[in-house]
């Protein structure tokens, strides 16, 4: 089997020891939804969790998997169904307790419990066992060669702390639940939570006992994180020096930021696709012809030109190009064709159109509300009267996920870089442990079976064939209307050296100052 024996990132030697005390003031449009690291599978939530909690392994800036809390991992040579992880020694949680295999077993089981949004990533896992204090075995149903890709956002919590504070299961965000871990943390990460006011300000300070002290630069001693929803206010804060780094420079202000003498702009293609979801069971959108009509009524090129000012890549599939399974053919976006769309509406029996509500976030994706507004106009041209309901993401996501919405916007990043992640969350029919983000009602037993089979397919060519087949089915069903892949634009002080990462997850222990 694939044998991983990775030399840790210790290549980065102790040359960073001369770090000065530095506070970094960091802003983006929206706040983390919860500090419970398993309760919400969402970008900004994970980004904040990554500062405080660690995963067994994570990705470097180029996307390669590197060690974190696990130093080595490999499938057992005599049993390919078992992955063995060797844990880093001498790691302590922020409260001083030791990090051991017990905590890994606890955390992975917690991530598979009810209320967890991380379930789909572990749907192939049968059992997690501690072999000794620093060795953990993860047994899967059939060999899953790609399991480790699913662990890059799987945070490790302290078993003792979780039991003491009665947070042994995650809280269900969609049901409005909270628990002690919503506002309190105890991780092993580079930063510790000092204070948090939701949607206002979160302050983190460097962890003096961080295991990565001599591995990473660790020049940041304090992080002040302020969500600023209004794009004008956010960019004004950056231009005036009130904040040091923003993750989402508004597309209209890119020129202004790069022209500033004190600021720099870092740009990269982002691993995130933006799309609309449709109800395939109830209402007019249950009719395939209506969905097809809506798909070709969206003028993706004009959204790119006007709303995104060129900062996007229109696409025809809900998959960013980073992902295994992506092809140029799938990516071809459908040609805008108003007459054909009108004809399809007529065929479907809706020549007079219909009324529908479009649920949209207004603080999550680049120009999310503007895209939705543009869609309102495009849908009106084929007779569909759309009422736009734009809300902050903390209110939008429960609506979108809960199946209340007939027409909603969503964005999807793929941390595993594999199609299976998209399928398991967005395509598999909604069951107890799969399809949690598929409120469209799309359900196809053959497709479900193929998705599950991906988890234990060791023949990678055969696996890729199955992926292609599932994509073909998704493209026919059109429960999602892809719009584009996002482009990342970080704006920051000129003396900050920080690589942009396609998942839009800054890891502040890597940040250095000139």
């Amino acid at each position, binding site marked *: 089997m694939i044998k991983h024996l990775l030399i840790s990132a210790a290549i980065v030697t102790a040359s960073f020891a001369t770090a000065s005390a530095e506070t970094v003031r960091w802003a983006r449009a929206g706040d983390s939804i919860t500090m419970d690291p398993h309760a919400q599978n969402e970008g900004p939530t994970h980004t904040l969790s990554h500062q405080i909690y660690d995963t067994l392994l994570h990705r470097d800036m180029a996307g390669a998997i590197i060690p974190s809390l696990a130093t080595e991992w490999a499938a057992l040579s005599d049993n390919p169904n078992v992955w063995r992880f060797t844990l880093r020694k001498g790691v302590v949680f922020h409260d001083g307790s030791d990090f051991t295999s017990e905590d890994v077993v606890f955390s992975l089981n917690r991530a598979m419990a009810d209320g967890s949004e991380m379930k789909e990533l572990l749907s192939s896992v049968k059992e997690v066992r501690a072999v000794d204090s620093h060795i953990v075995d993860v047994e899967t149903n059939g060999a899953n060669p790609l399991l480790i890709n699913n662990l890059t956002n799987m945070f490790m919590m302290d078993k003792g702390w979780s039991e003491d504070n009665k947070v042994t299961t995650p809280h269900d965000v969609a049901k409005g639940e909270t628990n002690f871990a919503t506002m309190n943390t105890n991780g092993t990460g580079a930063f510790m939570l000092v204070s948090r006011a939701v949607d206002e300000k979160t302050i983190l300070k460097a962890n003096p006992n961080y295991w990565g002290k001599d591995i990473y630069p660790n020049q940041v001693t304090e992080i002040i994180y302020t969500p600023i929803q*209004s*794009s*004008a206010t956010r*960019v*004004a804060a950056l*231009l005036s020096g009130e904040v040091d780094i923003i993750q989402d420079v*508004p597309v*209209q*202000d890119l*020129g*202004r930021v790069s022209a500033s003498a004190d600021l720099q702009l870092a740009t990269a293609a982002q691993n995130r696709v933006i799309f609309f979801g449709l109800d395939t069971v109830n209402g007019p959108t249950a009719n395939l012809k209506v969905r097809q009509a809506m798909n070709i009524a969206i*003028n993706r090129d*004009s*959204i790119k*030109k*006007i*709303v995104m000012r060129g900062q996007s890549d229109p696409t025809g599939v809900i998959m960013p190009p980073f992902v295994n399974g992506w092809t140029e053919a799938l990516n071809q976006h459908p040609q805008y064709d108003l007459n054909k769309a009108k004809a399809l509406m007529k065929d479907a029996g809706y020549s007079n159109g219909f009324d529908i*509500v479009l649920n949209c976030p*207004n603080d999550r994706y680049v120009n999310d*509300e*503007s895209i939705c*507004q*543009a869609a*309102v*106009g*495009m*849908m*009106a*041209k084929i007779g569909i009267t*759309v*009422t*736009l*309901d*734009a809300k902050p993401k903390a209110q939008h996501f429960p609506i979108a996920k809960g199946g209340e919405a007939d027409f909603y916007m969503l964005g999807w990043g793929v941390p595993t870089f594999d199609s299976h992640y998209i399928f398991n969350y967005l395509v598999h029919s909604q069951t107890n442990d799969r399809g949690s983000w598929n409120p469209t009602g799309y359900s196809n037993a053959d497709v479900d079976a193929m998705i599950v089979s991906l988890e234990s397919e060791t023949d990678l060519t055969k696996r890729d064939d199955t992926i292609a087949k599932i994509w073909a089915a998704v493209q026919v069903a059109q429960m999602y209307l892809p719009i584009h892949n996002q482009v990342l634009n970080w704006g920051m002080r000129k003396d900050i050296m920080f690589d942009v990462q396609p998942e839009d997850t800054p890891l502040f222990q890597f940040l250095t100052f000139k």
Partner: protein
Amino acid sequence: MERFFRSDFFYHFRHAPVAIVSFVTIILIILAAIFANFIAPTNPFDPASLNLMNGFTPPLEANEFTGERFLLGTDDQGRDLFSTILYGLRISLFVGLMAVLLAMVMGVLLGLIAGFLGGWIDSVIMRFADIQMTFPSILVAMLIYGVARGILPPEVRYEMSIVVLIISIGLSEWVPFARTVRGSTLVEKEKEYVTAAKMIGLTRQQIMLRHILPNVLSPVLVIATITFALAIIAEATLSFLGVGVPSTKPSLGTLIRIGQDFLFSGEWWILLFPAVTLLALALSINLFGDWLRDILNPKLK
């Protein structure tokens, strides 16, 4: 009519240039809003008529893709700003007017009752008014707005958003009416004509509405004008904060909110024109209201 033109009121009006200019501005803006569908070249509330490619066209310049020209340019969705401002004015004026009417009816009635009846009713009403005065009215409006949005089922929330705005602004502005009317009522109810009315056996209701009310109305007119301006600004503020009317049917406040995003990137017209319109409207109403107060207040003559 002739009596009006020969009145003191008209005489003072003719000799106050500020009053004339502000009055004409108000009338022009109101007419423009009423006849928006005849004046405006496009209907910005009809999303089917929009062409996204017209977005961000500067005033009077030709759009680089479609070649179309717009008097005041277009916003981020390709809406003609001139038309959008006219249609937005309709919402702003309608909300302002209805909110003032609501606040006026409520405030005058409560003030009348408090002043005339006195006793514990007076205490309850006026202490409640005092409590409400301790909160900024925009916060009260936001509170009422939030509660109403929470109670209403989602299907009617959008149709009701204007009604909710009217109610939330109206309920937050009734206190000045109530206080003034109560004060005047306290003075009026001691006068002989009220005693006379009581003597001939009229009911309290009749005395309040037929006899006292007409005599306490002139300060109400002044407060109404000032509150009208306040209500328009409150609507703009709520919409600016994103809790007002939906962005697909923008009012002046919504347009200013949209325009604010493009302040740094050079698309100044999206913010400037709606803001100037709002400024002109609110300033004119305030100036006219000030003048009205001076004229109707015998002490300042």
